[in-house]
């Protein structure tokens, strides 16, 4: 039964997917450069592949370029090259918030449209940022998961990446703010934010320490892929009563996700990297076609993803937000694990 429904939905999606490019081709002959942070990030490549597929279906050609190293300097070199090659648009995942400003402004002066995704530059260096999931939306989803898994009350802890990780800190702050302002979460107690530095070894030590320090701990929330996997392994191997949620990769979490006591993680979240790639491609094309300029409150239609409105980003610039993060649970994890 279930399989039938899934395949029906998939077929529907395929028909829609193939119908859009057939009708459109809104970007015929346009040249877009997609600049990554560095080569060798499988996660990023899911978004990149989806970006390329979407843009090519619209008739554009896309060159995916990676800098030699994951630094702003290396990206500046890449940008230098690109600016001299008449691209219509550059979509970049930035290695540094401010360092690329001069180069990107030079590109914009040349008439090249600049969009950012995955990791934003400052507002002056871009026309728009395509945000995978709003900070508050992530915080809200995680906190709701904690509340649900804890059964409405009790102690929980956060296992983060490094203490300086900007993304993680923003989500954690969002969680704290929501807890303070909303009585729904009054019975939850955040006992500690621990840092596993995105190393399995250190994350394991931190998880063990959390359990030893807080015997009544009900939930650990790990908003980082390495941390959640290490914690899941530790909790599951030890048959701990403490449960886990957070942000993780489905393929890495497949073994630990389940609703029963055998599994340490009932469900967790991540954004939809394929959706992000697609929305980024369509937004960039909208910029190139001058359907939008990247100004506040403009609206556009991103194919079958629906209508999007440009909103104000946390940094004062503008952004489109893909949507709430995707939930991975026992029902969809097997399918999703094949992708991520």
């Amino acid at each position: 039964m279930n399989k039938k429904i899934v395949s029906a939905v998939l077929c529907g999606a395929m028909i829609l997917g193939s119908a859009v490019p057939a009708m459109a081709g809104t970007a015929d002959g346009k040249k877009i450069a997609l600049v990554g942070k560095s080569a060798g990030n499988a996660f990023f490549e899911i978004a990149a592949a989806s970006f390329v597929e979407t843009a090519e279906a619209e008739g554009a050609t896309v060159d995916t370029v990676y800098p030699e190293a994951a630094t702003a300097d290396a990206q500046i070199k890449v940008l230098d090259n690109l600016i001299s090659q008449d691209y219509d648009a550059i979509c970049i995942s930035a290695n540094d918030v401010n360092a690329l400003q001069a180069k990107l402004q030079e590109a914009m002066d040349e008439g090249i449209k600049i969009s950012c995704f995955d990791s934003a530059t400052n507002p002056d260096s871009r026309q728009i940022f395509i945000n995978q999931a709003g900070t508050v939306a992530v915080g809200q989803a995680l906190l709701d998961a904690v509340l649900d898994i804890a059964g409405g009350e009790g102690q929980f802890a956060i296992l983060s990446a490094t203490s300086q990780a900007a993304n993680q800190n923003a989500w954690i702050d969002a969680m704290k703010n929501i807890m303070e302002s909303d009585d729904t979460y009054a019975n939850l107690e955040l006992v500690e934010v621990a840092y596993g530095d995105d190393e399995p070894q250190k994350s394991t030590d931190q998880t063990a320490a959390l359990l030893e320090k807080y015997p009544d701990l009900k939930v650990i929330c790990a908003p980082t892929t390495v941390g959640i996997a290490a914690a899941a392994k530790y909790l599951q191997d030890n048959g701990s009563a403490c449960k886990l949620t957070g942000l993780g990769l489905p393929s890495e979490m497949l073994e630990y996700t389940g609703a029963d006591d055998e599994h340490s993680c009932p469900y967790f979240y991540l954004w939809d990297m394929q959706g992000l790639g697609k929305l980024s491609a369509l937004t960039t094309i909208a910029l190139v076609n001058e359907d939008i300029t990247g100004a506040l409150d403009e609206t556009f239609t991103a194919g079958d993803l629906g209508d999007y409105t440009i909103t104000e980003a946390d940094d004062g610039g503008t952004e489109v937000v893909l949507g709430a993060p995707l939930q991975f649970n026992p029902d969809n994890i097997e399918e999703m694990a094949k992708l991520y």
Partner: protein
Amino acid sequence: MEKKSFMKKLTGSREALLAVILVLLFVVITIISPSFLTFKSLTDMLKNNAVTMVMSLGMLCVMLVGGIDISIMSTLALTGMSIGMLLKYDHISSTFLAFVIALAIGIACGFLVGLVISRADVPPIIATMGFMYIYRAMGYLVSHNGEWASAAALGKFKDFATTKFLGMSLVIWVIIFCYAVFFVFMKWTTLGRRIYAVGSNPSAAEVSGINVKNIKLLVYTIMGLLAGLGGALQVSIYASAMPDMQQGGEMDVIAACVIGGVSMSGGRGTVLGALLGSLILATIAKALPLIPFFDQLWLNTIKGVIILVVVVVNIVLQRTADKNALKGREM
């Protein structure tokens, strides 16, 4: 003969001091967090530090001949990633075979490092820096640009780390086995003694008929072998293979040796020292998150300070020991 036994006592007491430091750490931590001194917590600690502990033995050999190897964690990533991908894509399924392949790749990596250092006379830090980049990049290539081989893909292989024998994880038995073998090897075999000889005085060793080049080749190959073992253990313990695993971890291995009294200039260091050094490091890593008074941000700072204090105490003690030994000679 008398002098020698005097020296022996002193080096013995250096390790005794390390043991005292370790016991002190244990006492302090147990006061702060009583659950630390339980069988489960201690075996957890050993398991979580197995990679560093096992690889410290290789680093001991390398440092004894006056070398250093900073490519080891890249070798670990390459071997771990290789077996991870082989298991993921169902090319192999046997745990034993996975270990054999990991060891073989490790040996090959180490042998190559050893060749460059012993035959081309490239300074170890430079040669291994080169291999650090090469092997790490190869790890990424093997992983198809950064794929993970995760728990579900590793099949039975990951059960190695959760299987218990006489109440302890097989990983811990591997540690015990390695230390036992190296204890005998370094102390009672000709080859082991030759490593010491080359380290304390290469020209004297050369004159007395030891092939210094081959000994150097040997120690880097041993290091590679243990890095390969480390790769297999890492993948099994954490049930995932990532191309960036243990990046920077070589410093922990070197620190374990240095804390354990292994000299950076060669010739000095024992298996017991490496054991105590890596145990002290493991205890610090396990204990710091348990300490409630510190902001977590301070953890690395505290770790650094503790390492420095232990090493300084060690050096001061070494100096007095040297002085005393000389005094003995004057008399």
